[in-house]
């Protein structure tokens, strides 16, 4: 992001700061419309991963539920949408909605064991679930087996050199960010935070733990499903490997790398996991090593994520200009 937010921040009041932030965000989001086709493609990927990461931040950041099941939701979003289009001939938005409902159901199912298990056991159960989904779609003929599914070409994905599709993704990302902001600052967010801080106390204040955790999973599943559908549309080919449990780990990493203290953290994290591999691609296999090194460096030096890095920079700049 630009230099704007760092210098003019020492006031610390929320309203001018958030106005500056919003301006920067809008500028960053509009810029890819005027960039080259390749850059727009990368930005589109960024938006898609950001949607997934913003959704995953709700169970992780608010409810302290460490879910590695996000790739399962994305897989359901992609495959269910593709099947609805190919077999049922449904229009894309309706197919996406249907996939979303299905993913929400899967999310509710995954939430079932969340009451009984400690955080780490739940993490492994959700990871097992995403591995299960991944293995299953490779077996059944209906889901294309190991080859995956080929979507028909849609005009709107390629329209205006990808500008239209980017705008759709960016719009959905903004919508997702707003919804997550509402969730976070509203009653649901308060209840989720309370259930994370002390489940027993939250219960004694009348919080229905099961209902709340199910809600967290369902909301994140909706985000995951939308991101999965968009990812499938963007490549017009749904390969099972693209939705392997690795994807869960990547999105999880995006949330952690971005930092969870602010709502825009996952967006920043998504930029990291999309942009750094693309930037280092020119050196081929060495790029993966560079990416891993940067990854380790950021997570080791800044446990609070890129957010911590930015606020550290800001504090230093603030000291210089008193």
């Amino acid at each position, binding site marked *: 992001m630009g230099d704007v937010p760092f210098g003019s921040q020492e006031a610390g009041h929320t309203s001018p700061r958030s106005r500056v932030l919003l301006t920067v965000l809008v500028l960053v989001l509009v810029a890819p419309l005027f960039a080259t086709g390749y850059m727009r493609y990368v930005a589109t990927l960024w938006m898609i991963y950001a949607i997934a990461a913003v959704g995953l931040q709700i169970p992780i950041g608010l409810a302290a539920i*460490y879910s590695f099941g996000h790739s399962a939701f994305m897989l359901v979003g992609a495959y269910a949408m593709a099947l609805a289009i190919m077999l049922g001939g449904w229009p894309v938005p309706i197919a996406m909605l249907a996939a979303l409902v299905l993913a929400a159901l899967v999310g509710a199912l995954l939430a079932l*064991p969340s009451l*009984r*298990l*400690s955080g*780490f*056991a739940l*993490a*492994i*159960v959700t*990871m*097992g*679930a995403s*591995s*299960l989904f991944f*293995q*299953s779609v490779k*077996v059944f003929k209906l889901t294309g087996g190991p080859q995956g599914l080929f979507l028909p070409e849609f005009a709107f994905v390629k329209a205006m050199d990808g500008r239209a599709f980017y705008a759709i993704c960016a719009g959905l990302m903004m919508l997702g960010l707003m919804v997550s902001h509402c969730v976070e600052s509203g009653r649901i967010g308060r209840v989720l935070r309370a259930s994370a801080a002390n489940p027993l106390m939250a219960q004694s204040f009348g919080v229905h733990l099961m209902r709340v955790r199910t809600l967290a999973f369902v909301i994140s599943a909706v985000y995951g499903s939308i991101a999965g559908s968009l990812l499938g549309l963007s490549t017009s080919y749904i390969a099972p490997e693209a939705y392997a*449990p690795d994807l869960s*780990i990547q999105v*999880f*990493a995006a949330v*952690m*790398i971005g930092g969870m203290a602010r709502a825009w953290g996952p967006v920043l994290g998504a930029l990291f996991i999309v942009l750094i591999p693309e930037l280092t691609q020119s050196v081929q*296999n*060495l790029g*993966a*090593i560079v*990416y*891993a*090194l940067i*990854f*380790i460096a950021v*997570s*080791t*030096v800044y*446990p609070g994520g890129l957010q911590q890095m930015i606020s550290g920079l800001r504090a230093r700049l603030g000291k210089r200009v008193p």
Partner: protein
Amino acid sequence: MTLDILMAALVSGIVNGGLYALLGIAIVLIFSTTGVANFAQGELATFGAFAMFMIVLPVGLSLVVAWMSTVVLLGILGAVVYFIVIRPRPEADHLNLAVRTLGLSGLLHSIDVLKWGPNEPYRFPSLFGSGSLSFGTVVLSHDQLGTLAVAVAMAVLFFAFFNHTRPGLAMRAVAMNREVAALQGVDVQRTNVMVWVVATAISATVGLLVAPISFLDTGLMQPYLLKAFTAAIIGGMYSFPGVVAGGLILGIAEALATAAASIHVREPLAFAVLLLVLLLRPAGLFASSRLQRRV
């Protein structure tokens, strides 16, 4: 299903389960003492197998010596990893530490792919030769028997170390309660280093045992990591007998299901076993009431 098919499935299940259990021991060791869910455990094992095949063997050592020195080398690597990746910024929470190991896992994997990926898979030399023994109608290959023997020996060695030596007892003390252990004069820092050395050496052993059975490639341990975590959870995450039982249950159940139905049942079954155990005993099979409070 005839009896000898059943027996063959049982044996391969025990061998696989033993490997899950051994990798799970390393995971439980690190988790219970340093609080890190180490996602790099599998890639450390793969790296160990490559290190022996590509670096140690070409030096011209005999197979047994190369084996031993690889295990020692990986132990040293474990200490290096601890100092570089885990130790800085000790105020970080467990989640951040787990993310660091995710990065480490990615780093080791990309090093493997860069240096040795293009020519994979490799045929890895076996310590135990290629013959087989037959007991009646049941035929066991030397590989299976040797793998099992080494896995059992390694586990016994570890339990002896953990229960009867001073560093082992220090690890147990730190696992139980870090502050109290420090007050009793245990050097927590040094114990943590030891934990990483021992756990990494154990996972190197697993890598060296798996590589001859399946071909050596960069994805060698990927199927094993999730299974080892599953075994650890079945066992209750803090219990060593638990993780061994969990690994064996998982390995045998998978092998029997594969023999009875098809290879596709394997993954769903492993998941079903995990869910079933957690349904009946949410804190794991071997969770004692004292540790249950901490989980």
